[in-house]
């Protein structure tokens, strides 16, 4: 498995080739090289996966080269191969590969074709660095690296103001999280003297400091980074704006790379989180709140990608909810299934936008199913999966999160589990509703665009084929980690959980799996509720947007105030703008003008002026006439004598 670093090297080579020679090569060559580079990463990960199985699933840490070496501080280019990092590497490279292929079609007419693929390759390289790193600092390289790539790709169409601003916003908001993350990293080092995950885990588990304040602080500061990177409340604001980038980039950011980093990091550091109930509860609550908060915004948005963006924020909230409950493997499992259906949804929405000449407003769509049947099926499968329609991938992963919440009893707040479960169920209802609202508005209701002007068309094969692969994943990805109930019925054992669990801390207060009859009853109960809720959401969308098409206009008027609040996303951006951005700008200008130029430089110049003025006063003394100087000498001598005489007299 020593070759695992090649998974990062291939995309970097792709970046170099396309970066230096891309403009002199044909588009076909550029796209092929970039896609092959990622396919190479996937192949490397796959080979490593089989080697790992052969080696009896023993985690391996490979140190390639030293990076920052100041003994006792040792930071290396070291890579950790275990179940967790392999699952991530496989999912990231596979989904990214499909997105690359899709991009060759989607970006076919763009001027910045080589630049696009160079950035895209760098993005994947950084994400793989993040998941394969065996220490926190190398992880941080990937962590900031994906932030950089999101900046470059969200702002890819830099000539327009909106993408440029959105890219800047993404980078800065991420950096705010990274600031907290760095502090966590410093604390880790001064507490444990190492950055390596394996050594850290050993220290944490042998030096029992459970519940100790420093551990809680580390966990919370690191989580601060996750809040930024994984777009949780209150730092989620960059992600919805990130859709200003090309649609495949949104798919990449939302599904495979970047936003999943926070969930991965918390799971990677699970041995630490499990030591601190406070931080765990914070993680779970932030996740749950973000889940329902973002889902409620998604209910009323009209932009096809914006709905999906908020749904990502919401789904990431689910993952943190699971992680915060100690159900780390479920968090990773949901991350895994989500990668497929969210990539599918974004790419399908890209096909829609592509087919209606750039239109993104769902109010100007409708009835597209008959124009783009493949895309309709893609979107439908993705929507069903994310909504938790039984037997699709999203159903199994989400269901287990809700079950984990239902059965968990955190020590410091035993009822938290039930509260979080209710929040999760309501979020599930919202999810099903807004997804099928989207299905109806985009694909099924009658067209609301000028059919003479716009002739919607299906996407080319380069865009359809990758989506079918993702669709297959969105349906079947769940079957490798079935809940106990279904695992029993279908006699398909859960292979996912044991595979990743070696890297994760024990589940703590969450029931490991349904064992007894009582557990089974609970599972049947929560699963049934989940199914009912999903169907209710679906049915509500069907009723409002199909059966009584047009009734929503009346509802908007009836509930004008809450509707406006949701439509304007709780005015959070406006709030940040008014409290931080604008006052910050004014403060900087005042500091520069009034304080720096006015006071500080003013004092400097005043001192210089006083000295100069003194010089002016004393200047007439320097007349240049010898007789004047003779007078000064004579006068001075007399004065001296008098002073001496007085002095002697006083003695």
């Amino acid at each position: 498995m020593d070759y695992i670093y090649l998974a990062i090297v291939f995309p970097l080579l792709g970046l170099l080739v396309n970066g230096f020679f891309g403009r002199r090569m044909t588009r076909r060559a550029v796209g092929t090289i970039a896609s092959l580079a990622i396919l190479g990463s996937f192949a490397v990960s796959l080979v490593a996966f089989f080697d790992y199985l052969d080696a009896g699933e023993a985690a391996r840490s490979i140190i390639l080269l030293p990076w920052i070496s100041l003994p006792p501080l040792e930071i290396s280019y070291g890579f950790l191969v275990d179940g967790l990092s392999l699952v991530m590497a496989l999912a990231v490279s596979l989904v990214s590969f499909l997105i690359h292929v899709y991009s060759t079609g989607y970006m076919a007419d763009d001027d910045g074709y080589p630049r696009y693929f160079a950035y895209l390759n760098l993005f994947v390289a950084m994400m793989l660095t993040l998941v394969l790193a065996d220490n926190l600092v190398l992880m941080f390289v990937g962590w900031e690296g994906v932030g950089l790539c999101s900046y470059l790709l969200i702002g890819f169409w830099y000539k327009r103001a909106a993408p440029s601003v959105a890219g800047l916003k993404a980078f800065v908001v991420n950096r705010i999280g990274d600031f907290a993350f760095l502090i966590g990293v410093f604390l880790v080092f001064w507490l444990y003297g190492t950055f390596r995950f394996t050594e850290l885990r050993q220290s944490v588990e042998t030096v029992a400091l459970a519940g100790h304040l420093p551990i809680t602080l580390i966990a919370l500061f690191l989580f601060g980074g996750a809040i930024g990177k994984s777009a949780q409340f209150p730092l989620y604001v960059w992600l919805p704006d990130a859709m200003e980038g090309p649609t495949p980039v949104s798919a990449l950011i939302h599904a495979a790379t970047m936003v999943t980093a926070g969930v991965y990091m918390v799971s990677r550091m699970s041995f630490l989180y499990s030591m601190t109930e406070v931080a765990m509860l914070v993680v779970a609550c932030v996740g749950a709140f973000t889940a329902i908060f973002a889902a409620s915004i998604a209910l009323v948005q009209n932009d096809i990608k914006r709905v999906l963006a908020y749904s990502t924020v919401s789904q990431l909230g689910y993952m943190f909810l699971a992680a915060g409950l100690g159900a780390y493997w479920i968090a990773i499992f949901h991350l895994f299934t989500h990668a497929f259906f969210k990539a599918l949804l974004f790419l399908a929405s890209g096909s829609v936008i592509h087919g209606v000449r750039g239109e993104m407003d769902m109010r100007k769509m409708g009835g597209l199913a008959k124009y783009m049947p493949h895309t309709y099926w893609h979107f439908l499968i993705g929507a069903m999966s994310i909504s938790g329609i039984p037997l699709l991938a999203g159903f199994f992963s989400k269901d287990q999160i809700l079950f984990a919440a239902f059965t968990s009893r955190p020590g410091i707040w035993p009822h938290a589990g039930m509260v979080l479960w209710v929040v999760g169920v309501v979020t599930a209802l919202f999810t099903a509703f807004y997804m099928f609202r989207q299905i109806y508005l985009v694909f099924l209701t009658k067209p609301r665009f000028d059919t003479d002007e716009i002739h919607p068309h299906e996407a080319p094969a380069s865009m359809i084929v990758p989506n079918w692969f993702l669709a297959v994943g969105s349906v079947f990805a769940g079957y490798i980690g079935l809940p106990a109930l279904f695992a029993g019925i279908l006699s398909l054992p859960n292979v996912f959980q044991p595979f990743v669990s070696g890297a994760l801390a024990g589940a703590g207060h969450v029931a490991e799996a349904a064992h007894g009859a009582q557990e089974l009853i609970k599972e049947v109960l929560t699963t049934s509720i989940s199914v009912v809720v999903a169907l209710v959401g679906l049915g509500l969308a069907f009723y409002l947007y199909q059966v009584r098409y047009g009734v929503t206009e009346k509802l908007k008027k009836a509930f004008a105030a809450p509707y406006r609040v949701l439509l304007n996303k709780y005015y959070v951006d406006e709030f940040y703008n008014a409290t931080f951005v604008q006052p910050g700008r004014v403060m900087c200008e005042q500091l520069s003008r009034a304080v720096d130029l006015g006071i500080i430089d003013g004092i400097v110049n005043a001192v210089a002026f006083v000295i100069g003025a003194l010089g002016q006063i004393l200047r007439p003394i320097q007349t240049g006439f010898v007789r004047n100087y003779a007078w000064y000498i004579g006068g001075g001598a007399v004065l001296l004598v008098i002073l001496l005489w007085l002095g002697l007299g006083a003695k």
Partner: protein
Amino acid sequence: MDVLVQMMANAPLLSIIIFLPLAGAIIITLMSPARTHTIKWFAFWVSVVTFGISLFLLAGGGSFEHFSHVEQYTWLPQIGVSYHIGVDGISLWLVLLTTLLLPVSILSSFSAITKREKEYYILLLLMGFALAGTFVALDLFLFFLFWEAVLIPMYLLIGIWGSGRRIYAATKFVLYTVVGSFFMLLAIIGLYVYADSLGHATFDFIWLRSHLAPPELQTWFFLAFFLAFAIKVPLFPFHTWLADAHTEAPTAGSVLLAALLLKMGGYGFIRFCLTLFPEASVSAAPWVMALAVISIIYGALVCAAQTDFKRLIALSSVAHMGFVMLGIFSFANTSIGQVGATIQMVNHGVTTGALFLLVGVVYERRHTREIAQYGGLAAVMPQYYNVFLITMLASVGLPALNGFVGEFLILLGAFRADWALGGLATFGVVLAAIYLLTMFRKVFHGECTNPENRKLLDLNARELGYLVPLVLLMLWIGLYPKPYLGAIKPAVDNTVKSVMRIATGSISYARSGEKAAAVLAQVQPAEPTGGDA
């Protein structure tokens, strides 16, 4: 090749590095001012050869833990002045940075400077001479001579080839610096008098560092040196000369100013203040760290309000050098902060030097520094965009580029010394992203609407020639800093260890095994682990 290495190993390398530019400058004085082409290329090749020779410092695989390539000759025996020079891990990379940036700044001036070229290139070479001397002098008298000698060419460079309010800026620069130097001179004389009272009238650094002044005296000496160095760095609130000087200076002047003159301050602190006044340094540390943090935050906030391209980058040095100061005064049972500060001085020289060069590129084409005058350059100058992007990201401290290595070590060390100040300073990384990316957006993004910008030419071969080496350095130090840190660490370790031993006596210097235990012992005060925690 081996013969050459052997020969060079025995040569007085440092003297050659110092005096070759001086000799070049003298030879140019003999040339006719009309032969500008010859003068330019002659100056360039002198500096290139100097750089080439300076690389032999690295040959032979010697360690830089202690001073090497030492030369000592009696110079003014009557007052105990000797020509004593040497280089160790602290000064090594600054010397090499000097010899590297000299040809870079000469090359960058070829088309920018169109008047009085002869004098211009003489002064640039003199800068190289004085700067190299400052970084290797081991006699305080000699150090002071070089220190002041730097001022003269810089004063003329700003005053003659500068723009706008160049006379004001040049005068302010010199007066401000001289005020600080004056107090340093008093302290140097004080040290001499003190040495004399011990029966050894000398300015020699090596002798003085083994005969430290008593703490009360140290405080006064420290304050005097502090003022000189703090102005040079510049540390808040002594920074206002910097923006004017940088803004009005010609490009090469700004490059040398930012990359090397500011380093004289940082270098002075770590070489002289820490070593000669350890007790005073440790007791002043909380205050200096606080000023450093103010510099970081305040400098960044002020940057965010700038509308002048060059002024923004100039002021960014206040924030960046704040990090260096923070690292130097992060006293704890580790030298991580000081090592970080030393490498960060090199990083800042490379990165900010490159940023000034990049501003110079468009200034030369458009003759304006107003950010608002630009916009949409990404489409017009793609190469320029790429180089600028990498340089800006290095300045922002993005991992895998050089700035991160320095900032990370500094903050790690600072956090150990004072978690609150270290934490506050860490917020500087957010602010750096804000002001640099905003500037970048205004200059490069958007539609290129201004017709004057639309016909801008991309980087030419000469410009790439001096920018690409700097970009490669950013990547090298960022990705594989081992050779740099390897040379720096032993020397810095020596300095910091002696400071800690003298100043705090009891605190033992951490070794790998003890550290975790020591820290854990602090975390758990309930378990007494010994008297020295």
